[in-house]
């Protein structure tokens, strides 16, 4: 299951959704909004998401993880909109019979999500400036 959320991610509800008497382990990754990026103080952050394709590509990533590591339950929610420092921007959870596949599948999902989904991050800095992350060159024209 992959979803985009405009509101705070309900960490507890997601964790409970993965509970399974046959699962021996859960690996979770949460991405948090940091107060700093490349030496600049970040005040808040804005995610722009193109939801139709973010969801279909997110579901594809989870399906790929399940192909590589059978018998796992996986779930991911990514925020859109305005986030404050410390907010959870993305939550990935994988429950599996053994910890090795839980760790590997969780890592696979977050790694792919970061590079494949149509999601853009705009940082709002303390000095009032803003910048699109990963887009230094296009920002310079």
């Amino acid at each position, binding site marked *: 299951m992959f979803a985009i959320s405009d509101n705070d991610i309900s960490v507890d509800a997601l964790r409970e959704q993965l509970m399974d008497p046959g699962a021996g382990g859960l690996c979770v990754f949460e991405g948090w909004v940091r107060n700093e990026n490349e030496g600049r103080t970040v005040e808040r952050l804005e995610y722009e998401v193109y939801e139709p394709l973010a969801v279909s590509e997110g579901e594809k990533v989870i399906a790929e993880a399940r192909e590589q590591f059978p018998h796992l339950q996986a779930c991911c929610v990514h925020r859109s909109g305005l986030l404050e420092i410390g907010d959870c921007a993305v939550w990935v959870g994988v429950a599996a019979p053994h910890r090795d596949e839980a760790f590997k599948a969780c890592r696979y999902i977050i790694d792919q999500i970061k590079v494949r989904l149509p999601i853009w*991050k705009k940082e709002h800095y303390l000095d009032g400036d803003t910048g699109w992350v990963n887009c230094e060159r296009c920002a310079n024209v």
Partner: protein
Amino acid sequence: MKTITVRYFAMFREHAGLGEETLQLDVATALDVFEQTRSRHASTEPSGHCKVAINDEMAEWTSSVNDGDTVLLFPPVAGG
């Protein structure tokens, strides 16, 4: 000439000053659309760092575009 609807996202949208426009373009591939609208999305970013979708399906730069298609131009992504 083909009628192509082009959608701009994030930085590309801000530079174009609009999210979407319908243009008459002499194009064969998604890359042609990217290059012919480059001045609007004010990008010197190589296409390799960007992504493209056609009619809400992820596509390749070499994918062909047809009359009536919607081409979505995505600047470098940064999820997570």
